[in-house]
């Protein structure tokens, strides 16, 4: 997992996009980096107080 201050570089993001089958023009690559930093921060924060046996929610929430 990345550290708390990690800001993805354009090179890193371009590689990730390539693996996802996407190619972006440079101006959109910059925007994508900014949003990805926000998503990565959210993903890091999500990890608190999870136990080994905590199961995921699903679309079948109430059944």
């Amino acid at each position, binding site marked *: 997992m990345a550290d708390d201050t990690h800001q993805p570089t354009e090179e890193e*993001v371009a590689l*990730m*996009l390539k693996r*996802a*089958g*996407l190619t*972006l023009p440079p101006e*959109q690559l910059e*925007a*994508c980096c*900014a*949003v*990805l930093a*926000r*998503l990565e921060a*959210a*993903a890091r*924060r*999500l*990890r608190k*107080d*999870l136990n080994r046996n*905590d*199961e*995921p*929610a*699903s*679309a*079948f*929430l*109430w*059944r």
Partner: protein
Amino acid sequence: MPDELCYLSIAEAAPLLKSRQLSPVELINAFLHRIEVIDSRIHSFVLVTREEALRQAKAAETEIAAGRYRGPMHGIPIGLKDLIETAGIRTTAHSRVLIDHIPAEDATVVSRLTEAGCVLLGKLGCLEFAHGSPSPDQAWPAVRNPWNLEHGFTGGSSTGSATAVAAGLVMGALGTDTGGSIRNPASFCGIAGLMPTYGRVSRRGVIPYSFSLDHCGPMAWTAEDCAIMLHAIAGYDPNDPGSANLPVPDYSAALNDGIRGLRIGVIRHFYEPHLPPEDETRRAFEAALQELTKLGAVLEDVKLRELEEYDDCKVIIAEAEFFAVHEKDLIERYEDYGANLRFRALPGGLIRAVDYIQAQRQRTKLVADMQTRFLNYDAMVTLCTYGPAPKMSEDKSTHFFQRPNLTAVFNVTGNPAISICTGFDRTGLPLAMQIVGKPFDEATILRIAHTYEQATPWRRQRPALA
């Protein structure tokens, strides 16, 4: 007279239609005329189904005359967010990607409204695939807020649904809500918008944004009208894997029972002190709380998890699921999406599987925690938005990922929530609050909303569009 017909609520029009004091054909003609005169200024419709509407109105008239009145939605003019599939009628999701898409079948909610005798006036604009934001490269002009045509943004994403109801172009509309897309535009346009409990209303035939966060629900001028509409569309659907097999109550039955003794939790810590709302919004909310107290409810502050925890969960789940839905088209038809949607959608393809799973694991905790907090309350209230509708020019795609909104919390937990008008700011733009209920207890939040609306003057004020 025709304009007065267009400002009737569903609850007011239904007995007139039933008793044949009002003809469905007369009613529909009044609405079609008003759409023709006004919609070129607010762009709420992407398609007006004039011929089909007149055919349905005539059929309703014949049935009612023959004594076959179906109920309070019979002959009522409605519109559908263009994310909801209609058999033989183009359904675009407001995107060039689906510009020629004509579904073979109706969504379940459409079948149910047809069964209830509604008249479909057309398909309503929205943000692209419920996730974009207005951009000049789209096939239709941006929907305008009827309270300020010059610069009022309508929020997202059920924009056309909210504006058409506020402008008196439909009596009710359906919207969809993945992070606030019914409640935010309802708030900015001064109408009532209900996101039902996850599983209460079928999603079959509603083009998905995020399978596990999507809700479909009614938008109307009053909470009472939302209750009538919800009754028509709610209920188990075996074709929706998330549908709940539970009985549907009569949501109108207890609307007039008052709220004396109801315990209502007030959520302020979502925005205080770190994310202060605009002053008039906060003051209108505090005045609404005083009104609820005066009406007999017992209010006290309640503290839930931090807003950011819900927002983190929502953004990871929603963006990953959105990308999964659109992966093929985003790769193969990238240029067919609007620029703002591309900006929002692409990072979803970079979320790791493990991050998505952790978000869903955290979500289980948030759902359980919310149910525990509700043990002491019949409902909770909080702000719906931080302020009134912003200027269209102030809407930036980047905002979507910056300040957490106040509505997505309840998409994460699946609770029902309704946005209702709490007054107007000094420029005449509507303000709103959100009332949240226990799972499948839409009846209580509709009762609170209706009682508040009856006690306050806000439902008597419409946008000046003459």
